[in-house]
């Protein structure tokens, strides 16, 4: 019967044709979960391929700056492909092998999940197709480049608003026809059951490590844990380990975009999300009065999504996780701050968690112990960040690169023209 509810959220609102596929996936996931050998092989893969355990770094300079409150950073940026996304794709990859499927499809917004999936597919010998909004294909060329180099086919999605939510719809459409040999490798703790639970399970590796590490290094549990929330997978990954520690404050940070009042943001739980059903599950969505999904906005493409994990929606309803939103400009200053203070370049997504922590740190008790989950590294954001910082040297570089390409194209045309005798 109906499974996968977290309080009032979750469920499986899927077309009948996919029912059996979801049932089989649920069985495969539950069997793997009950099998210690599966988790052991997952841990081994993550150690030997992805660089786990990732460090928990004491941010010395930030700690001094904030009067001795201790600030620790969980370094998911040091994973293979530079983000926590690796945890999920490798876990699902092992499951795909167990299920005997030979092809994976995935949706991607910023391209991070696409790159991670393409990497896993290359390593595990699976065919790989990535659906990406046509708009995002334009905006995220470096990631498209890497996906293609890794052997994946990137399909630009031109329906709807041509962004992440439309890529999800397109991936589901593919799956409706291809489920016999294909796994849909969903990128975050969203979608129909069992995806939210399964992705949260693979990501729980973050919190398991962080909890052990903070107890060893600080000799105490943290007082506060900050994580950014797009779909919610990195946040759930770290939060889960502290859910039963009522004194640990858990803070999820959504994309405040141009400010909640502007309407141009992606704050579902901290903003004006409304409970609804889309993409296969029930949660808070940014939608209009008719139930149509709204366009979202964030400087961080990875947080730019209309829905949010049903597990987080439930933890929000219970008051166990507090939600906040950081604006684009707060995020860019936080990124600069962390780079200069600690020599760490965070992803724009992760900088949301940093921004909220920096905002709250001056008000926290003097003995506060803070963990910031740094979900990914920022070099992928070089175009966006250079834009936001309006860096003249970068502008000059891009312009001369473009002129170079233009000259080369022109030369080739003339050359080809001569060859064909024109």
């Amino acid at each position, binding site marked *: 019967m109906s499974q996968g509810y977290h309080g009032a959220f979750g469920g499986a609102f*899927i077309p009948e044709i996919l029912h059996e596929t979801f049932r089989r996936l649920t069985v495969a996931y539950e069997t793997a979960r009950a099998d210690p050998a599966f988790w052991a092989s997952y841990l081994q893969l993550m150690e030997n391929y992805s660089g786990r355990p990732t460090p928990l770094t004491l941010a010395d300079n930030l700690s001094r700056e904030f009067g001795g409150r201790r600030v620790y950073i969980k370094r998911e940026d040091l994973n293979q492909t530079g983000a926590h996304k690796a945890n999920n794709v490798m876990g699902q990859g092992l499951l795909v092998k167990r299920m005997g499927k030979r092809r994976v499809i995935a949706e991607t917004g910023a391209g991070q999940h696409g790159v991670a999936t393409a990497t896993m597919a290359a390593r595990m010998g699976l065919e790989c197709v990535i659906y990406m909004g046509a708009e995002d294909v334009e905006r995220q060329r470096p990631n498209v480049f890497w996906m293609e180099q890794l052997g994946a086919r990137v399909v630009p999605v031109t329906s709807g608003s041509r962004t992440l939510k439309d890529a999800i719809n397109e991936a589901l459409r593919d799956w409706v026809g291809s489920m016999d040999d294909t796994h849909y490798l969903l990128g975050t703790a969203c979608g129909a059951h069992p995806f939210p639970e399964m992705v949260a399970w693979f990501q729980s590796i973050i919190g398991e490590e962080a909890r052990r590490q903070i107890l060893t290094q600080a000799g105490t549990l943290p007082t506060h844990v900050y994580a950014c929330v797009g779909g919610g997978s990195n946040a759930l990954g770290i939060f889960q380990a502290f859910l039963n520690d009522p004194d640990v404050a858990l803070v999820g940070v959504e994309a405040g975009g141009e400010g909640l009042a502007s309407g141009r943001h992606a704050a579902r739980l901290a903003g004006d999300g409304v409970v609804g059903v889309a*993409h296969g599950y029930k949660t808070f969505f940014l939608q209009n009065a008719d*139930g149509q999904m709204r366009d979202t906005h964030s400087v961080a493409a990875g947080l730019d999504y209309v829905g949010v994990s049903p597990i987080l929606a439930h933890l929000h309803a219970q008051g166990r996780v507090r939600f906040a939103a950081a604006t684009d400009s707060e995020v860019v200053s936080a990124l600069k701050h962390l780079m200069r203070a600690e020599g760490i370049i965070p992803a724009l997504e992760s900088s949301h968690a940093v921004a909220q922590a920096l905002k709250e740190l001056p008000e926290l008790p003097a003995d506060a112990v803070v963990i910031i989950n740094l979900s990914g590294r920022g070099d992928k954001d070089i175009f966006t960040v250079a834009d936001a910082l309006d860096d003249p040297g970068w502008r000059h570089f891009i312009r001369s690169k473009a002129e170079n390409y233009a000259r080369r194209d022109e030369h080739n045309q003339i050359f080809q023209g001569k060859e064909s005798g024109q």
Partner: protein
Amino acid sequence: MTLSANPNQAAAPLPGPGEASALEKRVRNALTQRHHAGSAPILLMAHLVLGYPSLDENRRVIDAMVANGVDLIELQIPFSEPIADGPVIAMANQAALDRGFRVAEGLGFLGEVVRQHPIPFLLMTYFNILHAHGVEAFIRETKVLGGDGLIVPDLPLEEAGPARTLCQDVGVDWIQLMTPTTPEARLAAIGAAARGFCYCVARKGVTGRQTEFDNTIDGFLDRCRSVTGVPLALGFGVKSAKDVQNLVGKADIAVVGTAAMEVHRTGGVFAVGRFFADLRT
């Protein structure tokens, strides 16, 4: 992180076989009439997206459909996330929304066409449209406006409980979907809960792609027939008189969506009328 049962689940007894619904009787009467008129005993159900390209054009298309032998019409209320629809219908959903289509207009339109045409009309949409409107209010309005049934492809049996009960109380039929991947026990549960007719999905895949009308479809329809007493509609990929002819004696209703939309896009209203007239020959 505990799993709990669907909180909506409690109030969902399966309706028994019971008496035929008003829609089922209308379908059976229409079949009898077709038979008496000497034409093939199969009905045609057309699908169209409200507000695409405009409600005015929808009106003209419906006039042409009814004049050319369409027996039932499925009106799709556009949704921004049409996960079960193929590219043509998904694009039409978005185009209608881009032009500012509102759900209230769609309901008004249903009331209007029901008054003008003597055939059954059904609403097709995704669950969030009902949820945002208020599920009970939506179902009651469908009834008051004269709609015969609701088709909601992202609301499987497990999640449909309260909505189905409300439909039963109000007298609107909740149309169930059966698919080639539905296992026997589940098919039986769907069949037992079916009212009006069952919508049988001809193949894996979304709307608007090629379907081979071979004997796997016959076998699938046999399986569907064995679990329910309501009429069977077959949809996804029906596009020619030959496809329809193939279904005579196997299905009661042939559903035509994408093919008619393409004819409309390339040939206009007149071509749509001709297309449906030709499907019967």
